[in-house]
């Protein structure tokens, strides 16, 4: 053994590694490979993956797509959008979630088209009844992210913004009403 303040002497490379250290290093190595493998496999077999197609889109184009989608959508008595089909458009803009409130059904797979019309925003969503079930995605200006979601429980889902987007950011809130499908 030696001091970390002095150059090691002799052939330090060939000094054998302690047995306990070898066992620990083996375990740590196996663990590293396991968690890498699991993450990778989960993209194929798992139900929760932040994966979806991305397209370049200007804020103007995305706004137009959103308007078109709104025109085709139905509406509840309270003015909640009911999408016509599986596509759902949500545009983050200082300081509102355009395209909310929207009503979705459980058991149906939707394609959420997520983008921002100005700066970066954090799309953070959870049902009212269970705050632990929450998920966080990013809305980027210039990009449209199409990410699938299929809800399993009816509830009011709250969307808040958790990426700083300017003074007013903390008021940015919207809802998704999920009803039994």
């Amino acid at each position, binding site marked *: *053994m*030696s*001091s*970390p*303040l*002095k*150059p*090691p002497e002799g052939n330090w*490379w060939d*000094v054998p*590694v*302690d047995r*306990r*250290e070898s066992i*620990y*290093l083996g375990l*740590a*190595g196996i*663990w*590293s*490979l396991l*968690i890498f493998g699991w993450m990778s496999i989960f*993209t194929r077999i*798992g139900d*929760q*993956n*932040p*994966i*979806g197609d*991305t397209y370049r889109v200007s804020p103007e184009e995305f706004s137009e797509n959103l308007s078109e989608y709104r025109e085709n959508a139905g509406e509840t008595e309270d003015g909640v959008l009911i999408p016509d089909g599986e596509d759902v458009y949500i545009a983050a803009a200082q300081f509102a979630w355009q395209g909310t409130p929207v009503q979705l059904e459980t058991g149906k*797979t939707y394609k959420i088209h997520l983008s921002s019309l100005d*700066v*970066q925003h954090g799309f*953070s969503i959870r049902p009212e009844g269970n*705050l*632990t*079930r*929450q*998920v*966080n*995605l*990013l809305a*980027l*200006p*210039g*990009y449209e992210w199409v990410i*699938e*979601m*299929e809800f399993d429980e009816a509830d009011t889902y709250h969307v*808040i*913004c*958790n*990426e*700083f*987007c300017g*003074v*007013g*950011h*903390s*008021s940015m809130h919207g809802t998704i009403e999920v009803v039994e499908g």
Partner: protein
Amino acid sequence: MISALVNDYDEDGWRKCNVTGLDVHRSVENYVKLFGVTAVVALVVGGVFAFTVALTRWEIIGLLGEEAFYRHLSMHAWNLLIFWMVFMEIAILYVGGPMVLGRKLPLKKLAGAGFALMAAGAVIINYAIWTTSQPQEAPLLTAYAPLEISATFYGGGIVFLLGATVAALPFFAAVYLHYKDTTGSLPLVTFGAFATAIIAVQAIVGGLVVFSYAFLWRIDVIGSIDAALYRQLFWIIGHGSQQINLAAMVTVWYFLTHVVGGAEVFSEKVSRTAFVLYVFFINLGAAHHLLSDPVVSAEWRIFNASYAFYGAAFASMIHAFAIPAGLEAGRRKRGLGGGLFGWLTNGPWKNPVFSATIFSIILFGFLGGITGVVMGQLQTNMSWVRTLATVGHFHGTVAVGTTLTFMALVYFVIRVMFLKQLAFPRLASFQPYFYAGAMGVATILLMYAGILFGIPRRVDEVVWNIPGSDWSMLAAAPLITIFGVFAVLAILAGVIFAVVAVVSVFLGKDIEEGGNADLVPDGGYGVGADMEDGDPVHKYDVRGTFAITLIFLATFVAVYVLNWYVLTQLWQIGP
């Protein structure tokens, strides 16, 4: 004050340090003091804003309004994460390089110029943040384009980074000169510092590119800025600078456990391999900040965020064994403690240098390290990112881990370079316990608030009230209240540190000849003196370390499984 700057050097400016046994030159020591003192100033400034930020997030108190909150949060982040840490790191490079190698500080003028540029950059950034007014926005740490952030801010970032580069040059020169004069390998501490410096260069290049890009956009030289490109470039420095913190901290762990604890290098081969893994893999990890982003492909995110198959995480797990093993073997060899953990429990626990270092090692691993890997997985990232859990993770790494280590180093420098006794010795002994305890709990509470309640980061109110909405996240109110209490306690512990440090340096009693004998394990002259016996490692049984690291791995597995459980309770997301 003046006496603090005139240690007893011989006519050529050398003295022999009776704690480390190193030959120390005045030029190195003075710059270490300069960078160290400046770092403490930044710590105090950032700490003041920890107070206002915490008392705002404790919404019942709600100290600041929204606009002020973002400004204060930006001051907190830049002064602590960047200025406190980077000024300390330059000091660490000078200790690990020229001081350990027993050289003068080469290129002294560059060290001075680097310092001046860094200080100027820090002042510009503080000014830019503090004078933010609408329609301009505060940068926070990340200054994400295309928010309207002042060009002055980005300019200050460029100046600071250039300064850090210049200030690192004397370190590289010292290593170069060492190789010119001798053949053998570098001492391990120098080797670690060298790895740190290389990682720093990689990070700084990315930082200069991203701040220049944003600066040019803000002064209208380029018409638009791509938000996704900015994020990718930003995280080269944003992530890279954290890896500088990590590598510097690990280097200081080897240094301080040796000097005050009697640790030796358990295996040169293993420890050096781990540093080499850092150099190759650690900056690859930048994409773990883009895991829940569009644009970047899933394959690249997985490969990159797993640090190229966990090359760097594995390296950290290596240090996690090597450092306590070095301490255990070194102390067993000196007959300091038997049994399973006697080597640890018999340590100099009243010495704040020792206690702060040990707490840092343990808490960094258990709080910061494990959570970093868990939130760095593609899928579990979705439940961590941009919530208070993330804030919990990085306070586990930088606020508990690195800050405690750097506090230990400041205490050490006060006694060994300023040659001052610590003022209020009982308070100083107690401080690491208080800070580690309070900040450790605060950190865990942040993680709970994020994972169990999804409380977002970077907002001034959300739990008791969301402006303009009749819904809020009230279920988390008790947790946030307890967090508020522990945050205030942690800040109090920080205040104690600052008071002890400042009073010791400026008003402290000089240390008499031999007055530092209590710092070293043998109570004798220089830990290095009697150790070169080349004992093979297996002579000393490191079963205590083995037990601790097995507990660590078990905790890791448990936290990992729990997080995956929480994730798989979600509805279906993605294909």
